[in-house]
């Protein structure tokens, strides 16, 4: 065997796991889902090819309302995660000493060490009517009767922000880390005040990290299941719950698959719009950080 053949072979072998991963776990299931989503159920074990499942979605306000609700709440969560995550990331990257940096990063990581379910139960313990917060407020005397903090959209948003904020902080820290401190000092030196330096220098510099973090957080939030289900109230439906119900409760894989693709399309469009509006590309953001 010639050396070039060996080289090529080893290249193939190196590439094989990745290719298999993409093929088996991403392409094939999606192709299958696409196929299922285009089947119309006519009778037991009888199917026809068509777009009925997609048409159903647009004809039923409950479905697209839930999707819009999921989308707008995900946007709000993304925005809040950015608002809260940015100062933390800035502190970690630019202010904290080397030793405390590691500790701070670790603190942000801790929530990920326990499962979604446990985290949600943690929130439930805190927020419920007889939970920690309500009882403490009563004990302090700020409120007379117990207050229910759970089972509403605010609880869902809080739980989601808590879950995803790390994914906002990490890309932000890595972009801010690369920022020379003297850029900020130059910003002040040339006459800029705090807000100006933030708006004209720090944020534009961190834009790739901001966009990358927002994409990841938005995708994670829109695709999350347990947190909105467990913390949500009587009226809070989440689109993933809709998909789960279609698949599991209603045995309606056809429309569940269609919903899955609609969610994928919706989030992709949202991300694409976000990239367009911020003037970034996928290469300059997610691939870079």
């Amino acid at each position, binding site marked *: 065997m010639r050396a070039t053949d060996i080289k090529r072979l080893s290249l193939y072998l190196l590439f094989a796991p990745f290719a298999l991963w993409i093929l*088996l*776990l991403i392409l*094939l*299931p999606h*192709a*299958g*889902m696409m*196929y*299922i989503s285009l089947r119309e159920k006519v*009778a*037991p*074990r009888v199917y026809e090819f068509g777009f009925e499942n997609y048409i159903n979605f647009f004809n039923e306000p*409950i479905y697209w*309302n*839930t999707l819009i609700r999921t989308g707008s709440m995900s946007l709000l969560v993304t925005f809040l995660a950015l608002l809260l995550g940015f100062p933390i990331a800035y502190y970690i990257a630019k202010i904290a000493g080397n030793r405390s940096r590691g500790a701070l990063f670790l603190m942000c990581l801790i929530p990920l060490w326990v499962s979604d379910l446990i985290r949600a*139960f943690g929130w*439930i313990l805190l927020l*419920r*009517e*007889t939970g920690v917060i309500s009882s403490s407020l009563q004990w302090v005397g700020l409120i007379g009767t117990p207050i*229910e903090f*759970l*089972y509403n959209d605010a609880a869902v948003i809080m739980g989601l922000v808590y879950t995803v904020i790390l994914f906002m902080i990490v890309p932000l820290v890595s972009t801010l880390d690369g920022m020379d401190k003297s850029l900020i000092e130059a910003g002040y030196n040339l006459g800029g005040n705090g807000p100006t330096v933030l708006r004209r220098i720090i944020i534009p510099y961190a834009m790739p990290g901001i966009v990358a973090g927002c994409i990841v957080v938005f995708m994670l939030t829109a695709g999350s299941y347990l947190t909105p*289900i*467990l913390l949500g*109230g*009587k*009226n809070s*439906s989440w689109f993933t719950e*809709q998909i789960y*119900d*279609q*698949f*599991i*409760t*209603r*045995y*309606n*894989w056809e429309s569940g698959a269609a919903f899955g693709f609609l969610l994928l399309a919706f989030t992709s469009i949202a991300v694409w719009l976000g990239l367009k509006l911020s003037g970034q590309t996928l290469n300059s953001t997610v691939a870079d950080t």
Partner: protein
Amino acid sequence: MIIKIAMAGLLAATVMTTTAAQAETLRLLTWGSYAPDGLVKKFEAKYPDINVEVTFSNNEEMVAKLRATGGAGFDLAQPSHDRIFAAQQEYNIYKPLDLSKIDTSNMSKVHLDGVKGNTTIDGKVYAVPHQWGTSGLMADKAKAPDLKGWGDLCDPEYKGKTSMRLKRTILLGTAFDMGEDPFAAYADLAKYQQILDKVASKLISCKDNIKAYWKGGDDLSAMMLSGEIVASETWDSTAYKLYGQNKDIVFVPPKTGALAWIDTFAFPRKGKADDAAYKWINFVLEPENVQLMSASTGAIAAVNGGKDLLPADKKAAVNAAFTDADIDNLKFFANIPPGVEDMEGKTLEKIKAATGSE
């Protein structure tokens, strides 16, 4: 069919990694607590060449799992009796049982006949009963002594202090409470849709009265024990557990009858260890094992004198809940014909999406 092959391949891969090489493996797909450790160990001691693997699930997921693989990946499944007929017709995921290999002599006749009647397709029987239980109401007697029927959950007296699970049980219960017979209407789906619409508007107007919809036994228990709610729709086993901690919390069979389900034994179509599965069925039907099983599940075994094989505290809870008249009044879940799940699902979505009372 690419999808089927791919999914089967994936599932098979996950199953293979956990399969021991030599001994025969019995792969159980069942409810949480339906395969207590002690019982599994005892079984493995009796049949040393059989290795038991347990996957916990629920009705909907059991059907979905088997549907994904066309009935492969498990050797014995335990869906409720109403999840056999339509699922088999639509997805062909079970295979018939050989009743001669099961010791049915000990089974309580009423349950055995009921399940047989529900799950016979083309003269072949697809399931036998295992345990049965009911869905009904739970109330804190001290705070809600007058709760009698499904509709009482919407009584303004308990505003913000009741709960229910937004699943089909509450749809059926509310239908009975409104004087309808939903199971009879299964034969006429247009009629059934009318009933569902009525039920939906009732439950939507009831939304204000509900504190939250519970999602699992844990959050229901927490709300009930903490006193955040005083009454709820419930599984009887959950109520029995709470009775052990607070004697005021009892299961209340609704005046229209508690809804009864029977969890069954059914064979997935591509199961491989049929003999081991028959051995497991006969093993858990032995009276001493029934006792162990019922202690874990909190449900009553579908054997003669099943109630007496419950542990003492559970028996007390059952006796506190049911009179003989209540038992006679049980409404067994009827087979779900194709299409009904979809109708019910849509109704549930409508209720969930509605904002407050209308």
